[in-house]
């Protein structure tokens, strides 16, 4: 996989998170949230970062001007606050315990920062490239429908 070209090439870790930031909002078009996940048709898509923020300003810059299905994107850093009201929740390695806090059936696409993280989508770096695995079962439990195209791109699909 190609790395996100916008990030400085010098720092491999910065590059890795630039790519992850890019992916994070691009998952949105391949995901269908249940009705009621959004307040109304124009309410923005909220991407939350739980735990320490590995992206810095990269994510904020990436989502500027981007829209998903007519919705603008907002980024929130929620630390370890319980019951987050998010559509996409990035669970950093330091905040994985938070995953257990999310009520069953809460329509939040959870994205973990490592393989086997307690999340529906789990980032992994394979051969120096950012890839992701998908846990379909977790997604179903969260009432999140994932596009088959996303599954097709996943390095692994857990059922």
């Amino acid at each position: 996989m190609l790395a996100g070209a916008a990030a400085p090439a010098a720092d491999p870790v910065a590059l890795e998170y630039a790519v992850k930031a890019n992916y994070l909002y691009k998952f949105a078009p391949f995901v269908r949230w249940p009705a009621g996940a959004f307040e109304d048709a124009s309410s923005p898509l909220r991407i939350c970062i739980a735990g320490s923020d590995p992206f810095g300003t990269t994510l904020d810059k990436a989502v500027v001007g981007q829209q998903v299905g007519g919705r603008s994107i907002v980024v929130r850093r929620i630390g370890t606050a319980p019951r987050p009201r998010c559509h996409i929740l990035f669970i950093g390695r330091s905040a994985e315990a938070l995953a257990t806090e999310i009520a069953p059936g809460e329509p939040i696409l959870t994205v973990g920062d490592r393989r086997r993280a307690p999340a529906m989508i789990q980032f992994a770096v394979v051969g120096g490239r950012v890839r992701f695995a998908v846990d379909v079962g977790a997604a179903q439990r969260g009432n999140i429908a994932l596009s088959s195209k996303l599954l097709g791109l996943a390095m692994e699909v857990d059922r």
Partner: protein
Amino acid sequence: MIRLSRWLDRIGRRLAATPAIGIGLAVALLAISLMLAVHNEGLARAEKTRDAEIQARILAASLAGPLAFDDAAGTREYVEALSRRPDVLVIGAYGDDGRVRASFTRRGRPLPATARIGPPIEAAGELSVTAPVTQSGTRLGSVLLTVATESWWARATRYAGIAIVVVLASLLVAALAIFYAQASAAHRQLTEEIEHRREAEEALRQAQKMEAMGQLTGGVAHDFNNMLMVASSGLDLLDRTDDPAKRARLNDGIRQAIERGAKLTQQLLTFARRSPLTPEVLDIGARIRALQSLLERSLREDIAVDLAIPAGVWPIEVDASQLDVAVLNIAINARDAMPNGGSLRISAANLPGEGDRADMVGLSIRDSGTGIAPELMQKVFEPFFTTKGVGSGTGLGLSQVYGFARSSDGEVRIESQLGDGTTVTLLFPRSSKPLPHRIYRAADQGTADGSRRILIVEDDDHVAELVGQMLQELGYQSVRAQQATEGLDLIGSSGPFDLVLSDMIMPGRMNGLDLAQELGRRHRGLPVILMTGFSEAAASAAAEGIPLLVKPYTIDALGDALRKALR
């Protein structure tokens, strides 16, 4: 169906009149073919555009994931899959930043460096379509697809085959139309020519007949002179004698002379009558016997005419008057070949067929004349060939004989020895048809009972007087009218009558035929007998089916006709 056939008939007539319609049809065919080609071409181009757009959309849909998540290998895979289509020239897959992610170009075609979304562009045999890559309404990139459309030349080549067929078909239609119109014109011309020729032939036949008659005139005039001599000297002698026996003999002689004259003129009139060429089944013996008296009287007295026609000669189917003319022509030639007298023998015989030769009837006319020189034998049937001096022969006689024999499917043979006479033999095919049924009835000599009333319409006082006396002799009452209109009035005022006996040619606005037709309307069932000496008039009466007495007629013939009409 009837309307269709009428319509086709009308088209056919117009086609026959002018090739314009056919050429118009050909042009219309060409124009329709051209329009169809243009229409199909438009459809094909629309189809091609739609196909390219669909391919671009499929590619765009497939590329959503790979483009979103920078799956370069996946992107390339989809692009390569599509690039296997032979008509694909350029494929560009652009990311959401508008930059190229994967591409394919054939034969060094340039790839636009940045994405473009817009309507299809077609130029120089290439069609470029674009499609956005979107997922759930989110724009993830775009694709560009350029395919080869057929070049003008390739399209022309593709259409050339069918175009050649269409053009050839149109030319064929036009050519057929022209040919048909020409053929129709030629047909019309031919029909006219045939008609002219038929008229000319008829005129020729009549001329030949009159020519033959002209040859007869001398003999006939001589014969008439003899009859007049008998009649006039007989009348002179009647005035000078009171001996009843002598007077009866003289009366007989005069009557016989008049009967002979009447018969002769009757034959001449029949012979001269203009008639269409109509073959009929006839008994050659009866026909020749009927001609015998004319032959005997018209040839010179120093020529003996001898008939040797046995009973049982097969019937033949020929034109009767042409047969008469042929026999007369041969007889006239024979007469001229016997300047010092001789004999003319007419014989007929059946000639049974052998092998594939059909049964024939032979009619031979042999003279004891000078004969024909061998070197002239080949020429005698040629028109206008004659050995006679200027003014005595036209050379058409034997050519008529030859033409008549050929047109009757027969042939003519001539055998001659110088100094030993000539035999001309006419051969006719035997007819398989029966002879027309003829009724020969012995004349009933009885007289009527005097109760029947007959209206005579006759303008000539002498004839009317004589006919009245004959009717009285036969036991009929008679009333005379001078004209047809007077006759009609008399039927109203002095009727009823049992029969009307009318002359054909009369002064006044109605002739005998008109009278007969008027009587047919006013007094259906009243018999009419017409009298005439004119052969043309006789023919028209016969055509109307009205009984006819040909003047001069005998009292027996009158009685017979009346009995037949009143039966």
